[in-house]
């Protein structure tokens, strides 16, 4: 076809296309130069034009499911982006509104409720520290699915872990256990929480259940991280006992882990479950998790109830 065109037109086409390609390459180069020489200041998009889930449901017509997915991805980016950002002042102002809109657009979006329970309640700087919003989101889910024992378990968990309100936590675990088809462990969890809230065994059981029922790699990884933190707390307690015993024998704190190794109190330098050596303060003898550890900061454990065992 092209060969039938006059020679001048073919030459003009070739010149035009070459020029267009050159100009396009120039614009790309200029973009690279501008980004290198005049970097834009980091801007956090904290704008949410519509905060009402009901309004958004109307606006999206019959495309509310795909709109829910878009808000879900925004919620994940809001959480992950803020948590991983180097800035000191980490805030999560849009996390709850985004999850609220997501669950209004798709009221059966299970992971959005469960994600909310875990991450909205997470204390600063790893989360906004809003257990009230986590509970509100889960209660919203229960209005849609009143028999969803997982949401009841999650509400109990928020009361247990973040609010340290053991009677309420036990009441929610008990309510969850009465739902037909709910697993057996909820009964013992309810009884255990009521009898000995704050017990690390109960905490471990809860995180293990979250790990097993997460349905998402994100939540599972978070639960695994929490379980490693609980293991670290156990190890710190044992190491502290070892350091105290050293002090009893020598009337002085060990000046480092090697002192305890030489004393045959330890086989080697102790490392946490993430592989970072623990810190030992030679002045006070306190054993702590290193700030360089990926498990730092350790959670503030719930106050024990009904016994000294932690």
């Amino acid at each position, binding site marked *: 076809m092209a060969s039938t065109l006059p020679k001048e037109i073919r030459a003009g086409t070739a010149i035009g296309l070459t020029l267009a390609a050159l100009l396009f390459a120039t614009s790309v180069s200029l973009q690279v130069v501008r980004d290198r020489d005049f970097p834009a200041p980091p801007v956090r998009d904290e704008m949410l034009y519509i905060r009402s889930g009901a309004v958004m449901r*109307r606006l999206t*017509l*019959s*495309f*509310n*499911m*795909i709109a*829910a*997915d878009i808000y*879900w*991805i925004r919620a*994940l*980016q809001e959480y992950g982006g803020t948590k991983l950002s180097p800035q000191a002042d980490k805030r999560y102002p849009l996390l709850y509104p985004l999850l609220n809109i997501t669950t209004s657009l*798709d009221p*059966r979006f*299970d*992971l959005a409720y469960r*994600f909310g329970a875990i991450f909205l309640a997470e204390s600063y700087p790893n989360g906004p520290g809003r257990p009230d919003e986590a509970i509100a989101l889960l209660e919203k889910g229960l209005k849609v699915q009143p028999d969803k024992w997982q949401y009841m378990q999650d509400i109990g968990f928020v009361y247990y872990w973040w609010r340290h309100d053991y009677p309420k936590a036990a009441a929610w675990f008990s309510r969850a256990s009465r739902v037909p088809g709910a697993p057996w462990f909820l009964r013992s969890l309810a009884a255990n929480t009521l009898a000995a809230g704050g017990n690390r065994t109960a905490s471990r059981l809860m995180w293990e259940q979250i790990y097993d029922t*997460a*349905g*998402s*790699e*994100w*939540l599972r990884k978070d639960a695994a991280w929490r379980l490693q933190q609980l293991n670290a707390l156990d190890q710190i307690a044992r190491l502290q006992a070892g350091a105290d015993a050293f002090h009893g024998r020598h009337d002085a704190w060990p000046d480092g882990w090697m002192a305890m190794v030489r004393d045959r109190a330890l086989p080697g330098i102790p490392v946490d479950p993430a592989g970072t050596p623990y810190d030992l303060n030679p002045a006070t003898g306190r054993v702590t998790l290193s700030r360089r550890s990926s498990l730092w900061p350790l959670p503030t454990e719930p106050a024990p109830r009904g016994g000294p065992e932690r």
Partner: protein
Amino acid sequence: MKALRVVGTIAVSVFRESVRDKVLYNLVFFALLLISASYLIGQLTAGQDVKIIKDLGLAAMLLFGLFIAVFIGIGLVSKEVERRSIYSLLAKPIRRHEFIAGKYAGLVLTLAVNVAVMAVALYLVLACMAVTEPAAVRAAWEAPAVDPAMLEAILLIFVELMLVTALALFFSTFSSPILSASFTVGLVIAGQFDSDLKHFRAIVHSRVVADLTRALYYVLPNMAAFDVKAQVVHGLPVTAGYLAVTTAYGVSYVAAVVLAAMVIFARRDFR
């Protein structure tokens, strides 16, 4: 029999014209969208990729179908009038109602091919995702990736598109393309809020307004009734009775609108 043959001939020519107009190129875009999304979404969605691919596939099926139904539907008659080809067509042994029925059937055929190919592409992408996911992840899904129940949502999407096509054709028999598009899109949007009209009685004091809105509820096409995407994606049952009644509702509404289009077109003076 002769009438059916005429309708069939017109329908096939409409389908061929849409192929010539590269309407089916949207299928390539749909396939690219699904394949690229299935690759990218896994990194962004914390394990919700199968749900999101289903949402995306069904939403794209509806959106692309709406574009075709509205923007081709409004030109079915008006284009023939603008090009003045209507005179030569009507000079042939074709009755006006056969012309309208053929035009409608042709665009519905285009939409049927479109929806069918999109459905196959969606199932293929989901099958690939199901094969590559480990059993533990698959166990957490609310519904299987390759779920036959999705056909229920696809069926109702198709009936909804048939209805939108009928509305676009109806408006194009007496109005300009821009006005036809506005009326059709307006009705599609109003149809999403149709159920609100039913409950207007609870918030207005005037009995006249309440009765009027109630009447509007029955007259306007209830587009929201065709939306079972959420139930299907979450693995909730859609009863056969609901499917049958909603399909019958759509088909009877379509028949009424196409019939009205035939009546208007039959009375139209082209001199």
